[in-house]
Structures are given as C-alpha cells and as structure tokens.
C-alpha cells in the first residue's frame, strides 16, 4: 500500500473484474457507433442476429489469450513471443504488434475525431479534437494500469445511460420491423457479422493486461463476460435501432445517433444525441487509453525499460500522426471498417496468436517428453 515513492509497473495490479471492464470498453466503445450501420447494410432486418455470430470469435480469442498466458505466466505477448519464436523472430513479431496497436490507436482516434467533427463541432479543426483526446488519455496512461482500472469502474454505469434512455422511444418503436425473420436465410446475418467479429477479435489486447491481474484464476471468466456483455449491448442496440428505423438502419453512418435524435420526453428532454455523444466520448476515452497503454507497455517491454512513463508523450505524438497518416478522410475510415478490418483484425489478433499457441503447445510437449525421457534415464541410472 505505501509504496508511493517506488511505484514501478511491476507493483501495479488490477482485479480481474477491472480488466473485464477495460476489455468491455475496448471492444464496445467504438463498435456501438459504427457497427450497427455496417451490419444493417448486409443483414437488413436481421441485423440483431449478427453480433451473436460475431461474438464467437471473441470467446475463441479470450481462450487463446488466457491459454498463452497460462503457459507463460507473468508475461505479455511481447515477452513470450520471443520465447516461442526465438529472439530474432520474436523481436520482429513484437515490433509488428507494437506497430499494429499504434496504427490501430491512431485509427480509433481519427475515427472518433471524424465522428465528432462530422456530427457536432463542424467548424472545429480535426487536429484540435484529436490532440485534446490524446492529451487526456496520455494523462490516464501515465497514471498507470490501476488508474485505467478505476476509471473503467467509475465510467461503466455512465456508459450504460444510453441503454437506459432507450425505453423513452418505446412510442416510436414498431414491432413489425422485426419480421420477416431470416427472410433470405442465414447468409446475410453471417455477412453482417464480418465487421463486428473484427471488433470482437480486439479483445486479444487483454494479453497485455493478463500479467497485471491480481486474481488470475478469474481472468478467463472476466474476459468471457466482457465478450458476452459486448454481444448483449450490440444486440440490444441493433434491436433498438431496427425497431425505431426499420431497414433504413443500414443507410446511416451512425444510426444510433439518428435514433437518439428522435427522443423527446415531456417536451423537455429533447435531442439527447449530444448527451449520448458525451457518454460515447467517455467510452472512447477508455478504448483509446487501453490501446495506447498496450502499445506503450509493449514497447517498454521490448526495449527492456524499467519504467514506461517516458514513452507516453512521444507515443501520444505518434498516435496523432498515425491518425493523420493512415487515412485521408471519413470515407476511407468506413471503407477500412467495412472491407479491410474484418480480415486484418482477426488475422493479427486471433489467427496469429492461435499459431503461437499451437507452436507453444508443441514446444512444451517436446520439452515435457524430453524432460520425461531424461527423468526416466536418471531413474534407470540410479
């Protein structure tokens, strides 16, 4: 408790519940704004089914991340990839992962800024929106993983406010929009799941947080719960916008915002989209800080630094730059989300770790049988 002065990253711990909440934010915060629109394009009025299929890859990813961590306890992917693949290949992989997350963080910041500038602050320069957000997240990342965990706990209930606001639209919901269910068979719902499953694979970022969890035995369950929670949130939101807007849902870039614009209670609470935006800013703050933290802590582990804090500010600048470099405008953001990310995300965050896991199993078995054989020979010798 009283180790204030010598606060090293090794001493900081979060609980499995806090990690689960962080992961929940890491997937759902940006998914709720963009994904329903993309899903709606393919799955039409069955868009509420897609998150359920998509979440499967989330469960698989959680399993992979936790098994890898069980094989190499107290290590993050940066550290055990060097054990599995050897020093050189492992370092190359780590470097790739760091750039992957740096790039992703930049993308998220850019997408967030495009969302804010496009919907609310139309005359504000996008760099102001991006830099202000990165500054706030840098503050949290500097504070350490404990601060991230605590903010996640505080913000969790706030993040559910939009869900609580949904019943105010009961009057304009039409149940018949739901039907006919599965008009074109299951195929459109699978196509609609392509985009969300990329988001669900993002839960692999828990590989950076698993070594910091104090009650390890609960971490897999926490990860599974956060996948389940995200699936529920996406399903509820998809049902909600479907009931409010029908098949039009797929025509909007941010259908949820449009739906909340309909709200009017007692002629006083109107146009609550600004409130919803405010709450999404909180969610995105959590998401960005998680990704930002992962890229910073990954780099410090690769370089063998004792403290990651000196890296926070330079990486903040890099994140903003990545946000500008990676994508020219809003059109490309949604094109990336629709066409590239469904392949790119799971490939890096689920398939590649799966290969690592298989390799690790194979190595461990080799070691075990080798150890067993030597033990046997020892026995016979004695």
């Amino acid at each position, binding site marked *: 408790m009283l180790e204030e002065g010598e606060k090293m990253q090794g001493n900081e711990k979060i609980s499995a519940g806090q990690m689960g909440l962080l992961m929940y934010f890491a997937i759902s915060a940006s998914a709720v704004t963009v994904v329903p629109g993309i899903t709606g394009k393919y799955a039409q009025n069955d868009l509420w089914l897609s998150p359920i299929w998509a979440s499967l890859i989330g469960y698989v990813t959680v399993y992979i991340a936790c098994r890898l961590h069980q094989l190499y306890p107290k290590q993050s992917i940066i550290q055990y990839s060097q054990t599995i693949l050897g020093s050189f290949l492992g370092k190359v992989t780590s470097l790739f992962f760091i750039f992957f997350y740096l790039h992703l963080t930049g993308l998220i910041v850019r997408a967030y800024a495009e969302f804010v500038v496009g919907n609310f602050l139309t005359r504000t320069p996008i760099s102001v929106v991006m830099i202000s957000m990165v500054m706030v997240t840098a503050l949290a990342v500097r504070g350490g993983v404990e601060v991230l965990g605590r903010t996640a706990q505080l*913000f969790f209930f706030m993040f559910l406010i939009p869900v609580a606001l949904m019943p105010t639209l009961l009057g304009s919901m039409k149940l018949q929009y739901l039907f006919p269910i599965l008009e074109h068979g299951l195929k459109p719902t699978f196509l609609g799941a392509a985009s969300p499953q990329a988001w669900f694979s993002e839960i692999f970022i828990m590989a950076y947080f698993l070594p910091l969890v104090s009650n390890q035995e609960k971490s897999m369950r926490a990860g599974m719960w956060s996948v389940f929670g995200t699936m529920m949130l996406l399903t509820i939101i998809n049902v909600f916008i479907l009931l409010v807007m029908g098949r039009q849902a797929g025509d909007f870039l941010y259908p949820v915002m449009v739906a909340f614009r309909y709200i009017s209670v007692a002629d006083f609470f109107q146009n609550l989209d600004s409130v919803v935006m405010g709450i999404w800013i909180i969610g995105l*703050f959590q998401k960005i800080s998680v990704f930002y933290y992962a890229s910073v802590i990954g780099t410090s582990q690769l370089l063998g630094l004792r403290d990651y804090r000196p890296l926070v500010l330079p990486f903040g600048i890099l994140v903003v730059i990545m946000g500008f470099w990676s994508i020219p405008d809003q059109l490309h953001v949604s094109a990336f989300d629709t066409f590239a990310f469904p392949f790119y995300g799971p490939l890096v965050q689920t398939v590649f770790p799966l290969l690592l896991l298989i390799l690790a199993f194979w190595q461990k078995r080799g070691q075990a049988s080798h150890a067993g054989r030597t033990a046997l020979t020892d026995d016979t010798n004695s």
Partner: protein
Amino acid sequence: MNRNARKWWRMNKQKLQQQQQMPESSTQIAKELAANEAVLRELYTNCTDVVYRSFLIGGSTKALVIYIDGLSNTEELDRSVLSSLMNGKISKETHARKLVEKTISVSKWREITTLEECIESISNGCPVLLIDQQEAALSFGLEKWEKRAIEEPVAEGVVRGPREGFTESLNVNTSLLRRLIKSPALKMELMQIGGYTKTKVILAYIDGIVDPTLVTELKARLNRIDIDGVLESGYIEELIEDHPSSPFPQILSTERPDVACGNLLEGRVVILVDGTPFILIAPTTLIALLQSSEDYYQRSFASTAIRLLRYVFTVMSFLLPSLYVALITFHHEMVPTSLLISMASSREAVPFPALVEALIMEITFEALREAGVRLPKQVGAAVSIVGALVIGQAAVQAGLVSAPMVIVVAITGIASFMIPHYIAGIAIRLLRFPMMFLAGTLGLLGIMLGIIATVVHLCTIRSVGVPYLTPFAPMKGKELKDALVRAPWWMLNTRPRLTGESNMYRQAQGLKPDPSKGGDTS
C-alpha cells in the same frame, strides 16, 4: 539552487540551534546554583516575562524557582511549593526527590537533569525548581494560561449532534477525545515539531483497529518535517500529504470531536496540533469529504436523501456554469424551444459572450464570498446587501448580465456551500473555472474531456496509501452501504477496509430491532 539550500540547512544545523538559543542537549545541570542561574539568565536575556524567585529551603539551602509569567499557576506555586519549602524543617542534604515525597504537594512533577529539559519545561509553563548543590532539578506541572471556552464549531454546524468543538489548547482537545473513547486502547503519542515553536503534535489512534503500518508511515512522515515553526495544522497537512500538486485535500481537517472519534473507530489516525482547533484525519477519501457527522445521527432515510442531494449539488457546483455556457454557445438544440426563447430574450441586450458573462459573475461571487469572510461583522451586512443588489438586481437591469446567469451563479454558490467540508468546497469551486473555459471553447466535448481529466486525476491520487475514490473506484461493494447511501446502523456491521484487514466487525450481527426480539429481560 534547491540542493544548495538543502546542503546549507544541513551544514548550519549547529548554528541554527544556537540561533534558536537552545543549549546542547547534553549540558548537565551544574552543582552550583549560581552557575546554573547565570546560564539561564544568559539564555533568557531581554526576556522580561521570565520570573526568577530565589529563596532558602528550610532557612538554609539556596534555591531558585523559574517560570514564565502568565503560563503558570502562581497561586498554586506559592501555596504548595514556596510556602511549604520555606516554612518546613528540611535538612541540607535532602535530595530533590525526597522533597517531593515529603513536602511538596503537587501531583504532576518531573525530575530533570539537563539544561535543555529545563528550558523546555519553563517554556511549556512548568515552573522549575533548582536547588544548590544538587544536580537534579524539579519541574512542576502547574501550567495555566488563558483558554478559550469550548464552543460550537462555526464551520461545521449540525442540527442534531454534539455541539462541542475543539479549542486551541492541546490538553483540552485530548480530554475531549478521551471523554468519548474511554478504552485504554486509544493511544496518543506525543511529538514536537518546529525549531522555534516546539509545537506539540499528538498522533492518536485506536490500537487493535488501526493498521500498524499506517501509524508507522504517518510517524515517519511527521518525523521528516524540519521546519522553524508550526502555527496551524495546515502546515503539517501540506508537509505530509501524498500529492502536493493536487487541488483536492488529501487529509481531512475537522473541529468536531465526534467526527474525530468516528474516524478513530473506523481505523484512521488523528493528528492533533497544539494551538489550533483544527485536527487532521488521515487517510481520507473524497466521499468522506462529502459526508457530515450528522448523517450518522439522523434517521437513515433522511441521511440517505440528504447525501444523494449533496452529491447531486456537488456535481452541480462543479459543472452548472460550464453546462450553461456550453448550451448557450454550442448546443441550442438541446434546450426546449420555449425555454430557449425566454433565455435568448433575456440575453438579447447582454453585450458579452456567455463565457465572459459567466466568468465575470463567478469571479464577482468569489470576491463577495471572500469579502464576507474577512470583513468585520458590523460591515458584513452592508456588503452583503450591496453585493446582492449589485450583482443581482442592478446588473440585470443595466443589461450587463442576463437573469438566467444570475440564477446559475446563485445555484452554484449555494451548491458549493452544501459540501460539509469547506476545504473540499473550495477545491471544487476552483476547478469550475477551467471547466468554463473548456465549455466555452469546445462545448460539451470540452466538458466531457474536463470531467475525464478530473476523474483520471482523482483516480491517481491516494491519501496515505488509500485510493481517493474508494469505495467507488476501486469498487468495494460492501462499503457502498456507507457511501452511496447511509444504511441504518444495524446494517453497518463492517468497518471500511482502509489498508489492512484488522478488526473487521464493529458490532454484533442481527441488531435490527424487532418487537419479537424484545429486551434481554423479557
């Protein structure tokens, strides 16, 4: 520069001691009375308040009583010490200790052997008796000085609850604590801080409830202090807190003995400082700063309702002006049309943008508040009338500010005074100004970023190792019963878990009253 100063301080330690005119700690009291007197008179040159009274014990042995005028009970000294020694039949060789056993009828006394102890004792108001041909002196606990009577604390009023407040004198304050907690487990450890002031500081805690590491840590922090004087507990607070650059107070200060005792019973440590009615309580949390002692004396429903009201208005005092500025400047669509029209019409003649208007009003309000504290009572009423007229009526009529802004400022002001601990109120009121700038530049986005930054900061700070936002973050479900709401006493079975896990339960289980349970006698 800083390092040089530190080096200079260390090198001159000896010199500083001389400047403070303290004899070295090892100087023994000499055998000859005249030598001792000479040393003491040298030290107390130009100190007209020191009284030397020489006399003869039993008509033969030379003796000297030294005390400071106004700090000691001279009547008692004359009656119990001087007269009995002068009139008694005492042989020359009687040792000082024998005198106390046989002749001097003073209950509190101490034998001292060094000159430093002598000085200390005299400065504390204990008369010192030096006897010729003896290397030990006697110090009598006859301190007596003018004290303020125990009064009701001004800054922390309650409707229901004890009306006693701490006073400036340390022994009155310790007695107030001891009167509420009679168990010998209540420990009070004495320390002295301050080169010149030699201020007495007492560290109080309940053995068996408190986490021992907490006491060691606080003791270490107090021992680290090397300062010339401590005039108020604020000095100590700023020298031992965890995050000096935070606007939020990380140590609770209170004037109320019942608050102190409640915190002692929850396993916290209380620091009493001589010369001030404000005692310090550590560790503390943000929630503790938003709680009043009265919450525990009222019925739990009332307390819960008041607590929730207080939380809402605390958030308001932080956010209301900036929300208003953001709505007026950026988000017209969120305001219902009729309200928007009436707001717009009242703002029609106002020549300033909303942000400037808000800043003018809020700064004026802060100035009025500060003036209200400083002004003599007779003028205070006049100022408050002028203030109310100027920033209320006249400003609106002149078209300088709009009426809704006056309402917003008034609500903010009232809200900030709902916070039971004045210091916490100031912290939140100060943060309101950066929030207004954020709202005026980035609208709701700016407010959200401001909230996030504040929350991140609150999550970062700790008070003596305890996270500042416990029990919300880190979430401790068991403790929400005394944070979000105030559960009835029969449900508050566990103490808050601060740092360790010692002595969890504070009462027996199942205390919920019920007619069928009856009393023990039935």
